[in-house]
């Protein structure tokens, strides 16, 4: 009885341990807080507001400065910018998550196959990823989006599909390199000696060890996809009908919002974009600390 009592009092719970770790890993903590804020803002906002209508043209009076009925103001085409921000964060995030998921799934499969089995397949994968690293990603996506895709039919899914084209390169390289180093470690040899099959080794032994790398790689790809989609949107190759954050910036620049003193039109999407990128990058740095204890700082 006394012992049981002691362990409940003395041993910190899982939650306290996580909290304690986050206090030390400040980048991860701050990044997560911002992401949670953005999620609450966009998902909660969609429930409260009819963003399906208000975030699209001709919904409200145009060019109203922030205040009163429109807390964030309205744009030239009559979109309510608060609704645009709510929907924009959601759509922009969705593009990133879709492309990131495709990237990580393809990357894990290719990377594992190449790293674990080696041979000619490994060589092809290595060469292709190496060449793709040389090619400026955005330019390739511009060519694809600008010539294959019909500019007037671009949707959020098209953006996710186009940005997925390059999202697998990073994860493939990371997974392949990790598998190569882990393959040589003793625990894999022991698993082999104990008669485990290849698939069993991959899923039971290698995968758990790679989890921090996979999560970090996923976040990096989400960031990369949002970055690339923003580049395409800034050049006018984005989903013209959807109020993503990038398209909102594109329209504000296109209509010279800055020089016409419509500062709010540009300010809110810029703030949203900064928050998205800053949070993802903070999470990434934090995860790097989890995955490579070597870079852990002592201070």
């Amino acid at each position, binding site marked *: 009885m006394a012992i049981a009592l002691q362990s409940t009092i003395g041993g910190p719970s899982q939650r306290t341990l996580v909290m304690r770790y986050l206090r030390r890993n400040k980048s991860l903590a701050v990044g997560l807080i911002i992401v949670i804020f953005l999620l609450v803002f966009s998902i909660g906002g969609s429930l409260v507001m009819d963003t399906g209508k208000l975030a699209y043209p001709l919904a409200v009076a145009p060019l109203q400065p922030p205040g009163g009925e429109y807390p964030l103001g309205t744009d030239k085409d009559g979109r309510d910018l608060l609704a645009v921000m709510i929907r924009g964060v959601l759509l922009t995030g969705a593009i990133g998550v879709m492309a990131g998921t495709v990237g990580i799934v393809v990357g894990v499969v290719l990377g594992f196959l190449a790293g674990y089995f080696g041979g000619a397949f490994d060589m092809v994968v290595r060469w292709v990823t190496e*060449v793709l690293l040389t090619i400026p990603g955005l330019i390739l996506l511009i060519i694809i989006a600008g010539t294959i895709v019909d500019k007037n039919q671009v949707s959020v899914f098209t953006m996710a599909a186009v940005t997925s084209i390059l999202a697998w390169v990073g994860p493939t390289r990371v997974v392949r390199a990790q598998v190569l180093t882990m393959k040589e470690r003793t625990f894999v040899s022991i698993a082999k000696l104990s008669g485990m099959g290849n698939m069993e080794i991959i899923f039971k032994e290698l995968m758990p060890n790679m989890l921090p790398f996979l999560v970090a790689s996923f976040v990096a790809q989400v960031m990369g996809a949002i970055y690339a989609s923003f580049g395409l949107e800034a050049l006018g190759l984005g989903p013209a009908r959807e109020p993503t954050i990038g398209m909102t910036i594109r329209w504000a620049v296109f209509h010279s919002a800055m020089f016409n003193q419509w500062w709010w039109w540009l300010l809110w999407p810029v703030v949203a974009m900064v928050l998205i990128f800053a949070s993802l990058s903070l999470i990434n740095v934090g995860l790097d600390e989890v995955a490579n204890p070597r870079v852990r700082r002592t201070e």
Partner: protein
Amino acid sequence: MRLGYILRRFLFLIFVMWTAATVLFLIPRMSRVNPIRERFAALARSTGYSPKDLESIIASYELKFGLDKPLPQQYVEYMGSVLRGDLGVSLMAYPKPVTELIGEALPWTIGLLGVTTVLTFLIGTVIGALAGWPRSPKWVKGMVPPLMILAAIPPYILGLLLVYFIGFRLKLLPMGSAYSAGLTKDWSIPFILDVVTHAILPAMSLILGSVGFWALGMRGMGVTIQGEDYVNFAEHKGLKPGRIFYWYYVRNAILPQVTSLALAFGGIISAGVLVEGLYGFPGIGSTLGAAILANDYFVIYGIGYITVVAVAVSMLMVDLLYPLLDPRIRYGKK
């Protein structure tokens, strides 16, 4: 220096250029969009050609570009023209060759991106090296997190903020173009100064947006290097901290930085393209933006090809310089 090493890097360059050319040959032929039809359809919408004329014009252009021939023959002819440096003719500035259009824009881009890349790499590496060095003052170490946040933000957005605050509100610097209207393009001092003042904002957008990347990389590497036996042994030898800082710490930590520099050129060009477009800087970024708006596919392909070549050549240059920094590569592995 090993001949094999150079040869391998050259072969890789040629392979990349061939791949890029082939992909650029295949993309339009895989697409359902006919570039020429698209272009003239757009023209027709704005000027009012009759559809009948349109078809005959398209047919004559297809004949001119050899699109009526079988695919393998097209490929051979296409590769031949790429080898001769012929990237086709611009549709928006017809009949100007694409190479000429790119040739006018390229020096601006090389100037802007060359200078900013060198500055960014140097500033970032120095800050990172100092931030990772235990004897540095606290404020140097504190510089890395804010720079890292800046590095996460696309340079285009930093550019918007700079234009708004420094160009528009404070009116400190010119906001667009590469030189003031009315000046003649020559190598006179006033013109060069004018170009430099115009280039400050675009350059700052690019530099602020990536210094943190290099600082973070260098700091991480520096922390690792400090645990190396040779740094400890250098201390045992009684060397002065300054000597250890440069010859033992920086000289080794910089090697992976140089490797990442070679891999960063693609991203640098991508960022440059967007920032140029924002500032109306007359480089290939602005040309590309115009070509996209005008559906000028030949210019888009041409710029795609040139940027791939530029990145591959820059990587080759770094690869060839790298052995000068790392003797282990210079003599090859035993």
